[in-house]
Protein backbone atom coordinates (compact mmCIF):
# COMPACT_ATOMS: atom_id res chain seq x y z
CA UNK A 1 0.00 0.00 0.00
CA UNK A 2 1.64 3.21 -1.12
CA UNK A 3 1.09 6.43 0.74
CA UNK A 4 -0.11 8.13 -2.44
CA UNK A 5 -2.83 5.56 -3.04
CA UNK A 6 -3.89 5.71 0.56
CA UNK A 7 -4.36 9.44 0.48
CA UNK A 8 -6.25 9.58 -2.83
CA UNK A 9 -8.53 6.57 -2.96
CA UNK A 10 -11.37 6.35 -0.51
CA UNK A 11 -12.98 3.13 -1.60
CA UNK A 12 -12.84 0.74 -4.50
CA UNK A 13 -14.45 -2.34 -5.99
CA UNK A 14 -12.03 -4.48 -8.00
CA UNK A 15 -13.41 -7.22 -10.24
CA UNK A 16 -16.34 -7.69 -7.88
CA UNK A 17 -18.87 -10.42 -8.66
CA UNK A 18 -21.94 -11.17 -6.61
CA UNK A 19 -24.88 -13.57 -6.89
CA UNK A 20 -27.80 -13.95 -4.50
CA UNK A 21 -28.35 -17.52 -3.37
CA UNK A 22 -31.83 -18.61 -4.41
CA UNK A 23 -33.68 -21.88 -3.80
CA UNK A 24 -33.55 -22.68 -7.53
CA UNK A 25 -29.94 -21.65 -8.01
CA UNK A 26 -27.93 -18.46 -7.87
CA UNK A 27 -29.15 -15.17 -9.31
CA UNK A 28 -26.11 -13.39 -10.66
CA UNK A 29 -26.30 -9.62 -10.21
CA UNK A 30 -22.77 -8.28 -10.55
CA UNK A 31 -20.35 -10.02 -12.93
CA UNK A 32 -17.20 -7.95 -12.73
CA UNK A 33 -17.47 -4.44 -11.33
CA UNK A 34 -14.56 -2.02 -11.18
CA UNK A 35 -15.25 1.32 -9.53
CA UNK A 36 -12.96 3.63 -7.62
CA UNK A 37 -14.02 6.62 -5.56
CA UNK A 38 -11.37 9.20 -4.79
CA UNK A 39 -11.59 11.36 -1.70
CA UNK A 40 -14.13 14.11 -2.30
CA UNK A 41 -15.66 12.42 -5.33
CA UNK A 42 -19.32 13.03 -6.04
CA UNK A 43 -20.61 10.20 -8.22
CA UNK A 44 -24.08 9.40 -9.45
CA UNK A 45 -24.74 5.69 -10.03
CA UNK A 46 -27.29 4.99 -12.73
CA UNK A 47 -28.80 1.81 -14.16
CA UNK A 48 -32.00 -0.11 -14.81
CA UNK A 49 -34.12 -1.64 -12.06
CA UNK A 50 -32.42 -4.81 -10.87
CA UNK A 51 -29.07 -3.86 -12.40
CA UNK A 52 -27.43 -4.23 -8.99
CA UNK A 53 -27.11 -0.63 -7.76
CA UNK A 54 -28.35 -1.36 -4.27
CA UNK A 55 -26.30 -4.56 -4.19
CA UNK A 56 -23.23 -2.51 -5.06
CA UNK A 57 -23.91 -0.16 -2.12
CA UNK A 58 -24.37 -3.14 0.20
CA UNK A 59 -21.05 -4.53 -0.93
CA UNK A 60 -19.42 -1.17 -0.17
CA UNK A 61 -20.78 -1.28 3.40
CA UNK A 62 -19.73 -4.89 3.92
CA UNK A 63 -23.31 -6.02 4.60
CA UNK A 64 -22.77 -8.33 1.61
CA UNK A 65 -19.49 -10.10 0.81
CA UNK A 66 -18.38 -10.45 -2.84
CA UNK A 67 -18.16 -13.91 -4.42
CA UNK A 68 -15.10 -12.79 -6.36
CA UNK A 69 -12.93 -9.69 -6.42
CA UNK A 70 -12.21 -7.37 -3.53
CA UNK A 71 -13.83 -4.33 -1.95
CA UNK A 72 -11.46 -1.92 -0.23
CA UNK A 73 -11.95 1.01 2.08
CA UNK A 74 -8.93 3.23 2.72
CA UNK A 75 -6.83 0.63 0.88
CA UNK A 76 -7.71 -2.21 3.26
CA UNK A 77 -10.02 -5.04 2.19
CA UNK A 78 -13.41 -4.63 3.84
CA UNK A 79 -13.06 -8.06 5.44
CA UNK A 80 -10.25 -6.56 7.58
CA UNK A 81 -12.52 -3.83 8.93
CA UNK A 82 -14.46 -4.18 12.14
CA UNK A 83 -18.12 -3.32 11.57
CA UNK A 84 -18.00 -0.63 14.24
CA UNK A 85 -14.90 1.06 12.80
CA UNK A 86 -16.49 1.08 9.36
CA UNK A 87 -19.70 2.59 10.75
CA UNK A 88 -17.65 5.51 12.11
CA UNK A 89 -16.52 6.30 8.56
CA UNK A 90 -19.33 5.19 6.22
CA UNK A 91 -22.98 6.23 6.42
CA UNK A 92 -25.86 4.98 4.31
CA UNK A 93 -29.15 6.56 3.39
CA UNK A 94 -31.16 3.42 2.62
CA UNK A 95 -33.81 3.21 -0.06
CA UNK A 96 -36.34 1.89 2.40
CA UNK A 97 -36.37 2.23 6.15
CA UNK A 98 -39.15 1.31 8.53
CA UNK A 99 -38.97 3.94 11.22
CA UNK A 100 -39.90 2.79 14.69
CA UNK A 101 -42.96 4.50 16.10
CA UNK A 102 -42.97 6.91 19.03
CA UNK A 103 -39.46 8.27 18.65
CA UNK A 104 -38.85 11.96 18.24
CA UNK A 105 -36.61 13.17 15.43
CA UNK A 106 -33.83 14.10 17.86
CA UNK A 107 -33.84 10.59 19.33
CA UNK A 108 -33.61 8.96 15.90
CA UNK A 109 -30.83 11.27 14.75
CA UNK A 110 -29.15 10.42 18.06
CA UNK A 111 -29.12 6.76 16.94
CA UNK A 112 -26.76 7.90 14.19
CA UNK A 113 -24.23 8.48 16.98
CA UNK A 114 -24.32 4.79 17.99
CA UNK A 115 -20.96 3.91 16.40
CA UNK A 116 -19.30 6.76 18.32
CA UNK A 117 -20.93 5.91 21.68
CA UNK A 118 -18.49 6.16 24.57
CA UNK A 119 -20.71 5.81 27.60
CA UNK A 120 -23.00 2.98 28.61
CA UNK A 121 -26.15 5.07 29.07
CA UNK A 122 -25.45 8.78 28.61
CA UNK A 123 -24.56 10.63 25.43
CA UNK A 124 -21.54 12.93 25.35
CA UNK A 125 -21.51 16.63 24.54
CA UNK A 126 -19.72 15.76 21.31
CA UNK A 127 -22.71 13.54 20.44
CA UNK A 128 -25.19 16.31 21.13
CA UNK A 129 -23.19 18.83 19.09
CA UNK A 130 -22.92 16.38 16.19
CA UNK A 131 -26.68 15.80 16.28
CA UNK A 132 -27.38 19.54 16.28
CA UNK A 133 -25.04 20.04 13.36
CA UNK A 134 -26.50 17.11 11.42
CA UNK A 135 -30.02 18.43 11.94
CA UNK A 136 -28.95 21.88 10.79
CA UNK A 137 -27.06 20.56 7.76
CA UNK A 138 -30.02 18.44 6.68
CA UNK A 139 -32.38 21.37 7.14
CA UNK A 140 -34.23 19.43 9.82
CA UNK A 141 -33.68 21.62 12.89
CA UNK A 142 -37.32 22.63 13.03
CA UNK A 143 -38.29 18.95 13.09
CA UNK A 144 -36.24 18.20 16.23
CA UNK A 145 -39.17 17.64 18.59
CA UNK A 146 -41.59 16.11 16.09
CA UNK A 147 -42.56 12.44 16.06
CA UNK A 148 -41.10 10.60 13.08
CA UNK A 149 -44.41 9.00 12.10
CA UNK A 150 -46.00 12.44 11.71
CA UNK A 151 -43.51 13.67 9.10
CA UNK A 152 -44.29 14.20 5.43
CA UNK A 153 -42.24 12.39 2.78
CA UNK A 154 -39.85 15.29 2.34
CA UNK A 155 -39.41 15.85 6.08
CA UNK A 156 -38.83 12.15 6.58
CA UNK A 157 -36.08 12.15 3.97
CA UNK A 158 -34.40 15.11 5.72
CA UNK A 159 -34.55 13.13 8.97
CA UNK A 160 -32.79 10.19 7.29
CA UNK A 161 -30.12 12.50 5.88
CA UNK A 162 -29.60 13.95 9.37
CA UNK A 163 -29.26 10.43 10.82
CA UNK A 164 -26.58 9.61 8.26
CA UNK A 165 -24.76 12.92 8.83
CA UNK A 166 -24.80 12.41 12.62
CA UNK A 167 -22.46 9.48 11.98
CA UNK A 168 -19.94 12.11 10.79
CA UNK A 169 -18.95 9.89 7.88
CA UNK A 170 -16.20 10.39 5.34
CA UNK A 171 -18.11 8.34 2.78
CA UNK A 172 -21.84 8.84 2.26
CA UNK A 173 -23.81 6.27 0.26
CA UNK A 174 -27.26 7.39 -0.89
CA UNK A 175 -29.74 4.88 -2.30
CA UNK A 176 -32.32 6.83 -4.32
CA UNK A 177 -32.34 9.81 -1.97
CA UNK A 178 -34.90 11.66 -4.11
CA UNK A 179 -37.51 8.89 -4.03
CA UNK A 180 -40.97 10.30 -3.24
CA UNK A 181 -39.70 13.86 -3.26
CA UNK A 182 -41.17 16.67 -5.35
CA UNK A 183 -38.91 18.69 -7.62
CA UNK A 184 -38.22 21.42 -5.04
CA UNK A 185 -37.26 18.89 -2.39
CA UNK A 186 -35.14 16.91 -4.84
CA UNK A 187 -33.14 19.99 -5.70
CA UNK A 188 -32.88 21.11 -2.06
CA UNK A 189 -31.70 17.69 -0.87
CA UNK A 190 -29.09 17.21 -3.57
CA UNK A 191 -27.99 20.83 -3.07
CA UNK A 192 -27.37 20.10 0.61
CA UNK A 193 -25.35 16.97 -0.21
CA UNK A 194 -23.32 18.84 -2.78
CA UNK A 195 -22.62 21.72 -0.38
CA UNK A 196 -21.44 19.27 2.31
CA UNK A 197 -19.14 17.63 -0.18
CA UNK A 198 -17.74 21.00 -1.26
CA UNK A 199 -17.30 22.28 2.32
CA UNK A 200 -16.16 19.14 4.12
CA UNK A 201 -14.60 16.96 1.45
CA UNK A 202 -17.28 14.29 1.96
CA UNK A 203 -17.11 11.50 -0.61
CA UNK A 204 -20.54 10.72 -2.05
CA UNK A 205 -21.98 7.91 -4.13
CA UNK A 206 -25.66 8.40 -4.95
CA UNK A 207 -27.98 6.02 -6.78
CA UNK A 208 -30.24 8.14 -8.96
CA UNK A 209 -32.88 7.34 -11.55
CA UNK A 210 -33.47 10.70 -13.19
CA UNK A 211 -30.65 11.05 -15.73
CA UNK A 212 -31.04 14.81 -16.09
CA UNK A 213 -31.03 15.23 -12.32
CA UNK A 214 -27.88 13.09 -12.14
CA UNK A 215 -26.25 15.27 -14.78
CA UNK A 216 -27.16 18.47 -12.92
CA UNK A 217 -25.96 17.10 -9.57
CA UNK A 218 -22.84 15.03 -10.13
CA UNK A 219 -19.62 15.87 -11.97
CA UNK A 220 -19.22 12.12 -12.54
CA UNK A 221 -21.74 9.50 -13.58
CA UNK A 222 -21.22 5.73 -13.52
CA UNK A 223 -23.60 3.45 -15.40
CA UNK A 224 -24.24 -0.10 -14.31
CA UNK A 225 -25.48 -2.58 -16.91
CA UNK A 226 -25.34 -6.34 -17.26
CA UNK A 227 -23.33 -6.69 -14.04
CA UNK A 228 -20.60 -4.27 -15.12
CA UNK A 229 -19.81 -0.56 -15.04
CA UNK A 230 -20.26 0.19 -18.75
CA UNK A 231 -19.56 3.92 -18.63
CA UNK A 232 -17.93 6.19 -16.09
CA UNK A 233 -17.14 9.87 -16.57
CA UNK A 234 -18.50 13.41 -16.79
CA UNK A 235 -22.23 13.42 -17.60
CA UNK A 236 -21.64 15.37 -20.82
CA UNK A 237 -19.60 12.46 -22.18
CA UNK A 238 -21.45 9.55 -20.62
CA UNK A 239 -25.15 10.34 -20.89
CA UNK A 240 -25.66 10.11 -24.65
CA UNK A 241 -28.86 9.07 -26.46
CA UNK A 242 -27.02 5.98 -27.81
CA UNK A 243 -26.11 4.82 -24.33
CA UNK A 244 -29.62 5.43 -23.01
CA UNK A 245 -31.00 3.34 -25.87
CA UNK A 246 -28.48 0.55 -25.28
CA UNK A 247 -28.89 0.41 -21.48
CA UNK A 248 -32.54 1.29 -21.00
CA UNK A 249 -33.92 0.39 -24.42
CA UNK A 250 -35.59 3.80 -24.60
CA UNK A 251 -35.37 6.37 -27.41
CA UNK A 252 -34.52 9.85 -26.19
CA UNK A 253 -33.75 13.06 -28.03
CA UNK A 254 -30.86 15.25 -27.22
CA UNK A 255 -31.53 18.92 -26.64
CA UNK A 256 -29.37 21.81 -25.51
CA UNK A 257 -30.19 24.13 -22.67
CA UNK A 258 -29.63 27.88 -23.27
CA UNK A 259 -26.37 27.63 -21.34
CA UNK A 260 -25.17 24.83 -23.57
CA UNK A 261 -25.68 21.79 -21.33
CA UNK A 262 -27.06 18.57 -22.78
CA UNK A 263 -30.60 17.57 -21.91
CA UNK A 264 -32.16 14.20 -22.65
CA UNK A 265 -35.82 14.49 -23.59
CA UNK A 266 -38.25 11.60 -23.72
CA UNK A 267 -40.31 11.09 -26.85
CA UNK A 268 -44.04 11.03 -26.42
CA UNK A 269 -45.06 7.81 -24.64
Amino acid at each position, binding site marked *: MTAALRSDVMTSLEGVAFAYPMPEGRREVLRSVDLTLARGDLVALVGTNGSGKTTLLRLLTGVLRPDAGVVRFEGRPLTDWRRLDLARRVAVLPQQL*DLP*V*GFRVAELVGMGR*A*PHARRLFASTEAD*ERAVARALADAGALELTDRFAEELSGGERQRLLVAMALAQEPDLLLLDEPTLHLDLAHQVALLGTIRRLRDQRGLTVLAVLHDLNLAAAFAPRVAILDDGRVVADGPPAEVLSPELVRRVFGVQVDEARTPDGRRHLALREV
Partner: protein
Amino acid sequence: MRAAATASTKTQTVHTGPSLTRVTVVLGSGAILVLTAMVVAVAIGSVGVGVGDTLAILGHRLLGLPLARSVAPGAESIIFDVRLPRVLTAMLVGGGLGLAGTVFQALLRNPMADPYIIGTAAGASLGAIAGLMAPILLPVLAIGMGSSWLGLGLVQVLAFAGGLGTVLLVYAVSRANGRVPVVTLLLTGYAVSSVLAAGVALLMFFSGQHLGAIFGWLMGSLAAAKWTNLAFAAPLLTISAVLLIVRWRGLNLLLLGDGPAANLGLDVEREKLMLTMLATLATSTVVAISGTIGFVGLVVPHVLRLAIGPDHRLLLPASVLYGAALLTVADLGARVAGGIPVGIVTALIGAPFFIWLLRRSRVVRPVVTP
Protein backbone atom coordinates in the same frame (compact mmCIF):
# COMPACT_ATOMS: atom_id res chain seq x y z
CA MET B 1 -32.86 24.11 3.87
CA ARG B 2 -31.38 27.49 3.07
CA ALA B 3 -32.04 28.85 6.54
CA ALA B 4 -30.38 25.82 8.09
CA ALA B 5 -26.98 26.72 6.67
CA THR B 6 -26.66 29.65 9.05
CA ALA B 7 -27.85 27.64 12.03
CA SER B 8 -25.09 25.10 11.50
CA THR B 9 -22.42 27.68 12.25
CA LYS B 10 -23.63 28.07 15.84
CA THR B 11 -22.27 25.61 18.36
CA GLN B 12 -25.41 24.23 19.87
CA THR B 13 -26.47 20.89 21.19
CA VAL B 14 -29.60 18.79 20.90
CA HIS B 15 -30.61 16.34 23.62
CA THR B 16 -31.15 12.88 22.21
CA GLY B 17 -32.22 10.96 25.30
CA PRO B 18 -34.36 11.26 28.43
CA SER B 19 -33.29 13.92 30.93
CA LEU B 20 -31.98 12.90 34.32
CA THR B 21 -35.14 14.30 35.91
CA ARG B 22 -37.30 12.15 33.67
CA VAL B 23 -35.27 9.02 34.41
CA THR B 24 -35.46 9.74 38.16
CA VAL B 25 -39.22 10.34 38.08
CA VAL B 26 -40.02 7.25 35.98
CA LEU B 27 -37.74 4.78 37.75
CA GLY B 28 -38.22 6.37 41.20
CA SER B 29 -42.01 6.12 40.94
CA GLY B 30 -41.62 2.53 39.77
CA ALA B 31 -39.41 1.64 42.74
CA ILE B 32 -41.79 3.30 45.22
CA LEU B 33 -44.73 1.49 43.60
CA VAL B 34 -42.98 -1.88 43.87
CA LEU B 35 -42.00 -1.41 47.52
CA THR B 36 -45.47 -0.19 48.48
CA ALA B 37 -47.11 -3.09 46.67
CA MET B 38 -44.72 -5.47 48.41
CA VAL B 39 -45.46 -4.25 51.94
CA VAL B 40 -49.21 -4.11 51.36
CA ALA B 41 -49.26 -7.56 49.76
CA VAL B 42 -47.28 -9.03 52.65
CA ALA B 43 -49.56 -7.39 55.24
CA ILE B 44 -52.83 -8.54 53.67
CA GLY B 45 -54.02 -12.14 53.93
CA SER B 46 -56.39 -14.48 55.73
CA VAL B 47 -54.64 -13.59 58.99
CA GLY B 48 -54.45 -9.78 59.21
CA VAL B 49 -51.05 -8.63 60.41
CA GLY B 50 -51.19 -4.89 59.75
CA VAL B 51 -48.72 -2.70 57.88
CA GLY B 52 -46.94 -1.55 61.07
CA ASP B 53 -46.27 -5.07 62.31
CA THR B 54 -45.34 -6.19 58.79
CA LEU B 55 -42.74 -3.43 58.50
CA ALA B 56 -41.43 -4.35 61.97
CA ILE B 57 -41.08 -8.03 61.05
CA LEU B 58 -39.47 -7.25 57.67
CA GLY B 59 -37.10 -4.80 59.35
CA HIS B 60 -36.23 -7.41 61.97
CA ARG B 61 -35.63 -10.31 59.60
CA LEU B 62 -34.13 -8.48 56.63
CA LEU B 63 -32.28 -5.57 58.23
CA GLY B 64 -31.62 -6.97 61.74
CA LEU B 65 -33.59 -4.26 63.55
CA PRO B 66 -34.87 -5.10 67.05
CA LEU B 67 -38.41 -6.52 66.93
CA ALA B 68 -41.21 -4.64 68.67
CA ARG B 69 -42.91 -6.72 71.38
CA SER B 70 -46.41 -5.99 70.14
CA VAL B 71 -46.19 -8.41 67.20
CA ALA B 72 -48.71 -11.22 67.44
CA PRO B 73 -47.34 -14.74 67.96
CA GLY B 74 -47.16 -16.68 64.72
CA ALA B 75 -47.25 -13.51 62.64
CA GLU B 76 -43.52 -13.66 62.08
CA SER B 77 -43.75 -17.14 60.60
CA ILE B 78 -46.73 -16.23 58.41
CA ILE B 79 -44.95 -13.16 57.06
CA PHE B 80 -41.53 -14.65 56.61
CA ASP B 81 -42.17 -18.26 55.64
CA VAL B 82 -45.42 -17.96 53.69
CA ARG B 83 -46.19 -14.49 52.37
CA LEU B 84 -42.77 -12.96 51.76
CA PRO B 85 -41.50 -15.72 49.45
CA ARG B 86 -44.76 -15.53 47.52
CA VAL B 87 -44.65 -11.75 47.17
CA LEU B 88 -40.98 -11.79 46.21
CA THR B 89 -41.75 -14.48 43.63
CA ALA B 90 -44.53 -12.30 42.22
CA MET B 91 -42.09 -9.38 41.95
CA LEU B 92 -39.42 -11.47 40.22
CA VAL B 93 -41.89 -13.14 37.86
CA GLY B 94 -43.63 -9.84 36.98
CA GLY B 95 -40.32 -8.05 36.43
CA GLY B 96 -38.97 -10.91 34.32
CA LEU B 97 -42.10 -11.11 32.17
CA GLY B 98 -42.24 -7.33 31.66
CA LEU B 99 -38.61 -7.23 30.61
CA ALA B 100 -38.74 -10.29 28.34
CA GLY B 101 -41.92 -9.01 26.69
CA THR B 102 -40.30 -5.66 25.95
CA VAL B 103 -37.27 -7.38 24.44
CA PHE B 104 -39.26 -9.77 22.24
CA GLN B 105 -41.63 -7.05 20.96
CA ALA B 106 -38.66 -4.97 19.82
CA LEU B 107 -36.51 -7.86 18.62
CA LEU B 108 -39.31 -9.42 16.55
CA ARG B 109 -40.70 -5.97 15.61
CA ASN B 110 -44.10 -7.37 16.46
CA PRO B 111 -46.67 -5.82 18.79
CA MET B 112 -48.28 -9.24 19.38
CA ALA B 113 -45.06 -10.68 20.77
CA ASP B 114 -44.88 -11.75 24.40
CA PRO B 115 -42.18 -13.62 26.35
CA TYR B 116 -43.58 -16.99 25.29
CA ILE B 117 -43.96 -16.39 21.58
CA ILE B 118 -41.05 -18.34 20.09
CA GLY B 119 -41.71 -21.55 21.98
CA THR B 120 -40.77 -20.98 25.62
CA ALA B 121 -44.30 -21.53 26.91
CA ALA B 122 -44.99 -24.66 24.87
CA GLY B 123 -41.61 -26.21 25.71
CA ALA B 124 -41.87 -25.36 29.39
CA SER B 125 -45.45 -26.62 29.57
CA LEU B 126 -44.54 -29.96 28.03
CA GLY B 127 -41.61 -30.25 30.44
CA ALA B 128 -43.68 -29.31 33.47
CA ILE B 129 -46.54 -31.64 32.59
CA ALA B 130 -44.10 -34.47 31.96
CA GLY B 131 -42.75 -33.68 35.44
CA LEU B 132 -46.22 -33.64 36.99
CA MET B 133 -47.03 -36.97 35.36
CA ALA B 134 -43.63 -38.52 35.98
CA PRO B 135 -45.02 -40.91 38.61
CA ILE B 136 -47.20 -42.43 35.86
CA LEU B 137 -44.85 -42.06 32.92
CA LEU B 138 -41.55 -43.11 34.44
CA PRO B 139 -41.90 -44.26 38.01
CA VAL B 140 -38.25 -45.32 38.11
CA LEU B 141 -36.95 -41.93 36.98
CA ALA B 142 -39.14 -40.06 39.43
CA ILE B 143 -37.89 -42.14 42.34
CA GLY B 144 -34.31 -42.01 41.06
CA MET B 145 -34.30 -38.21 40.84
CA GLY B 146 -35.91 -37.92 44.21
CA SER B 147 -38.12 -34.97 44.94
CA SER B 148 -35.50 -32.28 44.61
CA TRP B 149 -32.56 -31.27 42.50
CA LEU B 150 -30.70 -28.19 43.70
CA GLY B 151 -33.75 -27.69 45.88
CA LEU B 152 -36.01 -27.66 42.82
CA GLY B 153 -38.74 -30.14 42.04
CA LEU B 154 -38.71 -32.26 38.89
CA VAL B 155 -41.47 -30.03 37.47
CA GLN B 156 -39.37 -26.88 37.76
CA VAL B 157 -36.27 -28.52 36.30
CA LEU B 158 -38.13 -29.94 33.30
CA ALA B 159 -40.05 -26.69 32.70
CA PHE B 160 -36.83 -24.68 32.72
CA ALA B 161 -35.04 -27.12 30.42
CA GLY B 162 -38.08 -27.41 28.14
CA GLY B 163 -38.36 -23.64 27.64
CA LEU B 164 -34.68 -23.08 27.03
CA GLY B 165 -34.28 -26.19 24.87
CA THR B 166 -37.23 -25.32 22.65
CA VAL B 167 -35.90 -21.83 21.86
CA LEU B 168 -32.44 -23.24 21.10
CA LEU B 169 -34.09 -25.65 18.67
CA VAL B 170 -36.25 -22.93 17.09
CA TYR B 171 -33.24 -20.65 16.70
CA ALA B 172 -31.11 -23.38 15.13
CA VAL B 173 -33.89 -24.31 12.68
CA SER B 174 -34.43 -20.65 11.70
CA ARG B 175 -30.79 -20.15 10.84
CA ALA B 176 -29.90 -20.02 7.14
CA ASN B 177 -26.71 -18.67 5.54
CA GLY B 178 -25.53 -17.48 8.94
CA ARG B 179 -28.61 -15.30 9.41
CA VAL B 180 -31.74 -15.60 11.47
CA PRO B 181 -34.49 -13.45 9.91
CA VAL B 182 -36.95 -12.43 12.61
CA VAL B 183 -39.97 -13.43 10.53
CA THR B 184 -38.57 -16.95 10.15
CA LEU B 185 -37.90 -17.04 13.88
CA LEU B 186 -41.47 -16.00 14.62
CA LEU B 187 -43.01 -18.55 12.23
CA THR B 188 -40.71 -21.40 13.28
CA GLY B 189 -41.52 -20.62 16.90
CA TYR B 190 -45.21 -20.80 16.09
CA ALA B 191 -44.86 -24.10 14.24
CA VAL B 192 -42.72 -25.76 16.93
CA SER B 193 -45.09 -24.45 19.62
CA SER B 194 -48.01 -26.08 17.80
CA VAL B 195 -46.27 -29.45 17.76
CA LEU B 196 -45.44 -29.20 21.46
CA ALA B 197 -48.97 -28.02 22.25
CA ALA B 198 -50.22 -31.23 20.61
CA GLY B 199 -47.95 -33.13 23.00
CA VAL B 200 -49.35 -31.15 25.93
CA ALA B 201 -52.91 -31.95 24.83
CA LEU B 202 -52.05 -35.63 24.47
CA LEU B 203 -50.56 -35.82 27.96
CA MET B 204 -53.57 -33.99 29.38
CA PHE B 205 -55.87 -36.48 27.68
CA PHE B 206 -54.21 -39.35 29.52
CA SER B 207 -53.53 -37.44 32.72
CA GLY B 208 -56.35 -38.80 34.85
CA GLN B 209 -56.22 -37.41 38.39
CA HIS B 210 -53.34 -35.02 37.48
CA LEU B 211 -55.54 -32.86 35.26
CA GLY B 212 -56.26 -30.34 38.01
CA ALA B 213 -52.57 -29.82 38.79
CA ILE B 214 -51.74 -29.52 35.08
CA PHE B 215 -54.49 -26.99 34.53
CA GLY B 216 -53.36 -24.92 37.50
CA TRP B 217 -49.81 -24.88 36.16
CA LEU B 218 -50.92 -23.84 32.66
CA MET B 219 -52.95 -20.95 34.12
CA GLY B 220 -49.93 -19.81 36.07
CA SER B 221 -49.89 -19.65 39.84
CA LEU B 222 -47.63 -18.44 42.62
CA ALA B 223 -49.19 -20.69 45.28
CA ALA B 224 -46.15 -22.98 45.31
CA ALA B 225 -43.66 -20.17 45.97
CA LYS B 226 -40.86 -21.04 48.38
CA TRP B 227 -37.42 -19.77 49.30
CA THR B 228 -35.59 -22.58 47.47
CA ASN B 229 -37.25 -21.56 44.19
CA LEU B 230 -36.27 -17.95 44.81
CA ALA B 231 -32.68 -18.94 45.44
CA PHE B 232 -32.66 -20.53 41.99
CA ALA B 233 -34.54 -17.79 40.15
CA ALA B 234 -33.22 -14.58 41.68
CA PRO B 235 -29.58 -14.88 40.49
CA LEU B 236 -30.57 -16.00 36.98
CA LEU B 237 -33.11 -13.19 36.61
CA THR B 238 -30.73 -10.58 37.99
CA ILE B 239 -27.98 -11.58 35.59
CA SER B 240 -30.24 -11.68 32.55
CA ALA B 241 -31.88 -8.35 33.51
CA VAL B 242 -28.55 -6.55 33.86
CA LEU B 243 -27.20 -7.98 30.61
CA LEU B 244 -30.41 -7.07 28.78
CA ILE B 245 -30.64 -3.52 30.15
CA VAL B 246 -27.08 -2.68 29.05
CA ARG B 247 -28.08 -3.81 25.52
CA TRP B 248 -30.62 -0.97 25.19
CA ARG B 249 -28.73 0.62 22.33
CA GLY B 250 -28.65 -2.54 20.25
CA LEU B 251 -32.37 -3.05 20.78
CA ASN B 252 -33.08 0.53 19.64
CA LEU B 253 -30.97 0.02 16.51
CA LEU B 254 -32.64 -3.30 15.68
CA LEU B 255 -35.97 -1.43 15.49
CA LEU B 256 -34.58 0.21 12.34
CA GLY B 257 -34.10 -3.21 10.69
CA ASP B 258 -31.10 -5.51 10.32
CA GLY B 259 -29.43 -3.63 7.45
CA PRO B 260 -29.57 -0.12 8.93
CA ALA B 261 -28.51 -1.50 12.34
CA ALA B 262 -25.45 -3.08 10.73
CA ASN B 263 -24.64 0.20 8.98
CA LEU B 264 -24.67 1.83 12.41
CA GLY B 265 -21.99 -0.58 13.58
CA LEU B 266 -24.07 -3.31 15.24
CA ASP B 267 -23.01 -6.95 14.92
CA VAL B 268 -26.61 -7.79 14.12
CA GLU B 269 -26.64 -11.59 14.23
CA ARG B 270 -24.62 -11.76 17.43
CA GLU B 271 -26.86 -9.16 19.06
CA LYS B 272 -30.05 -10.96 18.07
CA LEU B 273 -28.67 -14.24 19.44
CA MET B 274 -27.64 -12.63 22.73
CA LEU B 275 -30.97 -10.84 23.15
CA THR B 276 -33.00 -13.96 22.31
CA MET B 277 -31.05 -16.18 24.67
CA LEU B 278 -31.00 -13.71 27.58
CA ALA B 279 -34.73 -13.00 27.25
CA THR B 280 -35.40 -16.74 26.96
CA LEU B 281 -33.27 -17.42 30.05
CA ALA B 282 -35.37 -14.89 31.96
CA THR B 283 -38.64 -16.34 30.64
CA SER B 284 -37.70 -19.98 31.29
CA THR B 285 -36.62 -19.14 34.83
CA VAL B 286 -39.88 -17.34 35.48
CA VAL B 287 -42.01 -20.09 33.95
CA ALA B 288 -40.21 -22.76 35.95
CA ILE B 289 -41.33 -21.21 39.25
CA SER B 290 -44.77 -19.86 38.28
CA GLY B 291 -46.19 -21.63 35.25
CA THR B 292 -47.31 -19.65 32.21
CA ILE B 293 -48.84 -16.45 33.55
CA GLY B 294 -50.33 -14.63 30.59
CA PHE B 295 -50.78 -11.01 29.62
CA VAL B 296 -48.18 -9.36 31.89
CA GLY B 297 -45.44 -9.71 29.28
CA LEU B 298 -47.75 -8.36 26.55
CA VAL B 299 -49.40 -5.48 28.38
CA VAL B 300 -46.54 -4.00 30.42
CA PRO B 301 -44.35 -3.08 27.42
CA HIS B 302 -47.31 -1.55 25.55
CA VAL B 303 -48.53 0.51 28.50
CA LEU B 304 -45.02 1.77 29.20
CA ARG B 305 -44.32 2.55 25.55
CA LEU B 306 -47.48 4.68 25.47
CA ALA B 307 -46.61 6.35 28.77
CA ILE B 308 -42.86 6.97 28.53
CA GLY B 309 -41.94 6.38 24.89
CA PRO B 310 -40.11 3.59 23.06
CA ASP B 311 -36.47 4.39 23.97
CA HIS B 312 -35.14 1.17 25.51
CA ARG B 313 -32.69 3.10 27.65
CA LEU B 314 -35.63 3.90 29.95
CA LEU B 315 -38.13 1.28 28.77
CA LEU B 316 -36.11 -1.79 29.81
CA PRO B 317 -35.50 -0.87 33.48
CA ALA B 318 -39.03 0.55 33.74
CA SER B 319 -40.54 -2.70 32.44
CA VAL B 320 -38.83 -4.59 35.28
CA LEU B 321 -40.17 -2.26 37.99
CA TYR B 322 -43.70 -1.80 36.69
CA GLY B 323 -44.01 -5.48 35.73
CA ALA B 324 -43.00 -6.40 39.27
CA ALA B 325 -45.55 -3.99 40.78
CA LEU B 326 -48.32 -5.18 38.47
CA LEU B 327 -47.93 -8.87 39.23
CA THR B 328 -47.57 -8.23 42.98
CA VAL B 329 -50.93 -6.46 42.98
CA ALA B 330 -52.50 -9.08 40.67
CA ASP B 331 -51.35 -11.90 42.92
CA LEU B 332 -52.75 -10.09 45.95
CA GLY B 333 -56.05 -9.99 44.07
CA ALA B 334 -55.77 -13.71 43.32
CA ARG B 335 -55.20 -14.50 47.01
CA VAL B 336 -58.04 -12.25 48.18
CA ALA B 337 -60.34 -13.83 45.57
CA GLY B 338 -59.94 -17.17 47.30
CA GLY B 339 -56.68 -18.46 45.92
CA ILE B 340 -57.48 -18.63 42.21
CA PRO B 341 -54.49 -18.87 39.79
CA VAL B 342 -53.01 -15.39 39.23
CA GLY B 343 -53.08 -15.97 35.47
CA ILE B 344 -56.87 -15.71 35.63
CA VAL B 345 -56.61 -12.32 37.35
CA THR B 346 -54.09 -10.92 34.87
CA ALA B 347 -56.25 -11.97 31.93
CA LEU B 348 -59.54 -10.88 33.49
CA ILE B 349 -58.40 -7.41 34.52
CA GLY B 350 -55.42 -6.88 32.23
CA ALA B 351 -57.18 -7.46 28.93
CA PRO B 352 -60.11 -5.03 29.39
CA PHE B 353 -57.71 -2.43 30.80
CA PHE B 354 -55.53 -2.87 27.73
CA ILE B 355 -58.48 -2.41 25.38
CA TRP B 356 -59.57 0.72 27.28
CA LEU B 357 -56.05 2.08 27.01
CA LEU B 358 -55.82 1.37 23.27
CA ARG B 359 -59.09 3.19 22.65
CA ARG B 360 -58.25 6.10 24.92
CA SER B 361 -54.88 6.89 23.37
CA ARG B 362 -55.66 8.57 20.08
CA VAL B 363 -52.77 6.89 18.34
CA VAL B 364 -52.51 3.13 18.66
CA ARG B 365 -48.81 2.61 18.40
CA PRO B 366 -47.37 -0.44 16.73
CA VAL B 367 -43.66 -1.06 17.23
CA VAL B 368 -42.71 -0.15 13.66
CA THR B 369 -44.63 1.58 10.89
CA PRO B 370 -44.62 -0.41 7.68
